[in-house]
């Protein structure tokens, strides 16, 4: 009976399954927690009947105090709870409370006899010794720093690398006035106007922005825009009006505009290009963020660009540096987007067999390309069922492109999927991003399709380039999402708009979600430019990518 503590997404560090085979080993949680932001190791008492009641109560109280302290200290540490990486005896963590560990450590485990018993006992003894040493260290440090009488807060030992505390991005803290004030100040400093939210939001999503398409950001800017480059203004308008839609399209347009920005940039005297250019890009990025929240693909591209700029050697002259940057952007575009699309299309259409019926949803540039290539480059016959949903009705565009190529298509709305699925052989979906726990973030409705397909035992394949992999973790669609203009849901029929007066009705709120998150167990295969991988291998790819970039 292990007592589990699960504050805000952190994993219970001590479940002994990894370190000590066999159940019920009571060791005091030397678990490496997930990456940054030390997970407090909690003294876990394994076998209940051995501990007395008072000790149990004591343990619970300690855990609660630790939880409170952690919450006060940091923001949310969004550590991905790494699946399957439980106790790693090589990285012991500090156990905070002096009283309990000895108690639980010494709790006699008469009950069980782990196989390979002697090594177990040795391991246990080692661990105990390490922990006591570290505890002593910590106490000494605490005495130095003169912290309060509270029990030691969980901190990393000095031997470990300093971790990055992940802060919540502003765009999911709209209902927090302090965060909004900070944002307003930052925008004022950068001379970017602040876009006002529109309409009452559904309570669950009050932490997200909701903008109206009829009130563009340019309303608050001077007409010949001086602070923001005109190409960026145009791009921002195209994003907010929905003219450039889709993860790849937005990223490509962004990179092209950055190329133009770099072309028009000139280093002021006494400044270095590598530092000044990044500073000059920031207001433009804030502006684009205000027009429409940045997509994951755009975010990754920006991170890459900033890194490239700051890594420019100082010896280069300005023109050479600019040319080099343009070259790297072109490379990125070609490799990560264009060639990746080709590779994915090639591997994906091998999965398409003769007389297949393929279901697609919405409009994904990758999926469209795969299907068109499969039609032209192989002689397999297949037909496609295009599923569409309101209010965007993007499936119409997919339909147009596929029919233009000569592919036999059927068009249904999403409420009809349970009728068509019995004849579907596979489902091909596109993705906006792949999260670090293997979830797929895609257009709203995708998770429904995946769910119903699972019920009908139809394989679900997701196509996604690696540059859209993201280190975020989400298990639900609420925490980080995008709210589109609620007026899009208003439909005019016979000259009457039923929902037209929704703003006056106080008890009516419209919700127009853009993305949703599909859990990894509903997806069978992810087709990337690195090959075909299962959903759970996404963190591996991310790790490999990080190593590559460093």
């Amino acid at each position, binding site marked *: 009976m292990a007592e589990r503590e699960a504050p805000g997404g952190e994993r219970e560090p001590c479940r002994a399954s990894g370190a000590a085979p066999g159940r019920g080993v009571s060791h005091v949680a030397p678990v490496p927690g997930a990456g940054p932001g030390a997970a407090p190791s909690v003294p876990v008492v394994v076998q209940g009947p051995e501990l007395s009641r008072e000790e149990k109560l004591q343990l619970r109280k300690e855990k609660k105090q630790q939880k409170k302290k952690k919450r006060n200290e940091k923001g949310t540490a969004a550590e991905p709870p790494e699946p399957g990486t439980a106790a790693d005896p090589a990285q012991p963590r500090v156990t905070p409370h002096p009283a309990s560990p000895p108690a639980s450590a010494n709790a006699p485990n008469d009950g069980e006899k782990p196989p390979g018993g002697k090594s177990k006992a040795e391991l246990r003894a080692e661990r105990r010794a390490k922990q006591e040493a570290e505890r002593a260290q910590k106490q000494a440090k605490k005495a130095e720093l003169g912290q309060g009488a509270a029990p030691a807060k969980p901190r990393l030992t000095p031997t470990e690398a300093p971790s990055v505390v992940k802060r919540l991005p502003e765009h999911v803290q709209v209902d927090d006035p302090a965060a909004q004030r900070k944002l307003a100040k930052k925008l004022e400093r950068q001379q970017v106007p602040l876009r006002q939210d529109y309409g009452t939001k559904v309570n669950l999503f009050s932490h997200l922005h909701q903008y109206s398409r009829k009130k563009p950001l340019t309303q608050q800017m001077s007409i010949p825009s001086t602070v923001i480059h005109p190409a960026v203004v145009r791009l921002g308008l195209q994003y907010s009006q929905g*003219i*450039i839609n889709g993860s790849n*399209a937005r990223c490509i347009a962004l990179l092209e505009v950055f190329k133009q920005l770099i072309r028009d940039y000139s280093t002021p005297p006494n400044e270095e290009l590598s530092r000044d250019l990044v500073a000059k890009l920031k207001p433009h990025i804030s502006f684009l963020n205000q027009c429409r929240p940045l997509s994951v693909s755009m975010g990754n591209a920006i991170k890459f660009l900033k890194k490239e700029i700051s890594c420019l050697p100082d010896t280069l002259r300005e023109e050479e540096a600019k040319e080099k940057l343009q070259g790297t952007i072109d490379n990125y575009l070609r490799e990560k987007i264009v060639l990746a699309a080709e590779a994915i299309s090639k591997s994906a259409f091998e999965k398409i067999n003769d007389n297949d019926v393929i279901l697609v949803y919405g409009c994904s540039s990758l999926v469209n390309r795969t299907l068109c290539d499969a039609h032209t480059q192989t002689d397999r016959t297949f037909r496609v069922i295009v599923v569409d949903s309101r209010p965007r009705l993007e499936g119409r565009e997919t339909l147009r492109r596929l029919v233009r190529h000569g592919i036999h298509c059927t068009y249904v709305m999403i409420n009809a999927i349970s009728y068509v699925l019995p004849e579907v052989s596979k489902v091909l979906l596109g993705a906006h991003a792949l999260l670090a726990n293997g979830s797929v973030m895609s257009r709203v409705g995708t998770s429904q399709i995946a769910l119903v397909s699972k019920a009908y035992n139809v394989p679900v394949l997701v196509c996604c380039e690696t540059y859209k992999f993201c280190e975020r973790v989400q298990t639900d669609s609420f925490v980080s999402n995008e709210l589109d203009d609620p007026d899009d849901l208003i439909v005019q029929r016979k000259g009457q708009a039923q929902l037209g007066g929704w703003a006056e009705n106080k008890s009516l709120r419209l919700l127009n979600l853009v993305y949703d998150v599909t859990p990894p167990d509903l997806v069978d295969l992810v087709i990337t430019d690195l090959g075909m991988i299962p959903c759970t291998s996404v963190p591996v790819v991310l790790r490999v990518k990080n190593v590559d970039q460093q």
Partner: protein
Amino acid sequence: MEFQAVVMAAGGGSRMTDLTSSIPKPLLPVGNRPLLWYPLNLLERAGFEEVIVITRKEIQKMLSLDTKMKLDFVYISDNVDMGTADSLRHIHQKIKTDVLVLSCDLITDVDLYKVVDLFRTHDATLSMLMKKAPEPTEVAPGQKGKKKPVEQRDFIGVDDTGKRLLFMANEADLDEELVIKRSILQKHPRMHIRTGLMDAHLYCLKKYVVDFLVENRTITSLRSELIPHLVRKQFSSPTSLQQGLDNKEEGRKKKEQASLDIYSFIKEDNSLLKPAPDNSCWNDHRGDMNETLHEGKVRCYVHIMKEGLCCRVNTLALYIEANRQVPKLLLNLGLEEPLVHGTAQITDRGMVGSDSIIGSSTQIGEKTSIKHSIIGSACTIKDKVKITNCIIMNSVTIEEGCCLQGSVICNNAVIEKGADIKDCLIGSDQRLETKGK
């Protein structure tokens, strides 16, 4: 830089010669400010810092505007009769970016960003402003008895969204039928044709249009020639144009014609928009197999104002209408000057209506009632005068006991005692006898 603003103030005011014979049109007082002030104020409010003003020489001397913007005056001599397109050609060396062209007689409170956003978002060639024209209600003074010919109507065709300009023709150019090309209907099956729209003469043009104007010297006027040409060009491809020109104009070499085609002026830095639309799921139309925007390179957009003030001071009737609307506009602009100027000496405040504008140093006698009128500066109005719905310019003397209704009285006129004036237009320096009617 994104835009350059150009104000065309060289026009003669040919449709209201009664007024403009003594005062050049840009200086006509509307609400006690020169007409030119209004477009400049619109640009200043939008955030422009520099404006190019094309005008005649004598105007600048008489002009005294207080604006923070840098005004760059370009002079055209009186002798040369230049159309608006000719003027643009004249200054084409100054124009380095996309240009926003305004006419000096435009009084409006439109949000400029709406017109400009259409231009930016769709990477349009042309973006213009139009307003639903109000029905003319009253006959203008001085034109009683004359039957005004029916104004030539404009036929404007817009698509379903109301933003894309598909068709533009003036009744004068058509014989009996309205001819619409099939290519337009093929690409936009639903088109709304409207006749009651007034063109505000506010155009956002791309730089390559100015380059095209420079080469193509046959186009003299923006409104009547260039704009319809651009609208028609949206639906014709470069090759078909060449054949068309061959048939019409003989004696020209083919090479010349090819270079006159506007498509050759469109620079290929549309690369910004090229790869993205391939991947983007937006399409401006549906129901056919074509790519978004039909891959047309020339695009014209129009913003049609529904509410708000937008008038062009072209004719006498419009001048009077503008004067009536201006007090509201000035109030909305939140200017610091009150409607009744500080230095005006008015003995009887209560008799002055709330939407009347009174200029500086004007003396108004007792028992004088002023309603819905605009009185210029340095006027002398004696006692017991009734003024309703009038526009009185500067330095006018009105003696006692007069009754003026619905009239326009120009500078330096003198109206003797007891005159009863209704719906008249009195020119400058005129003198009206006692008890005249």
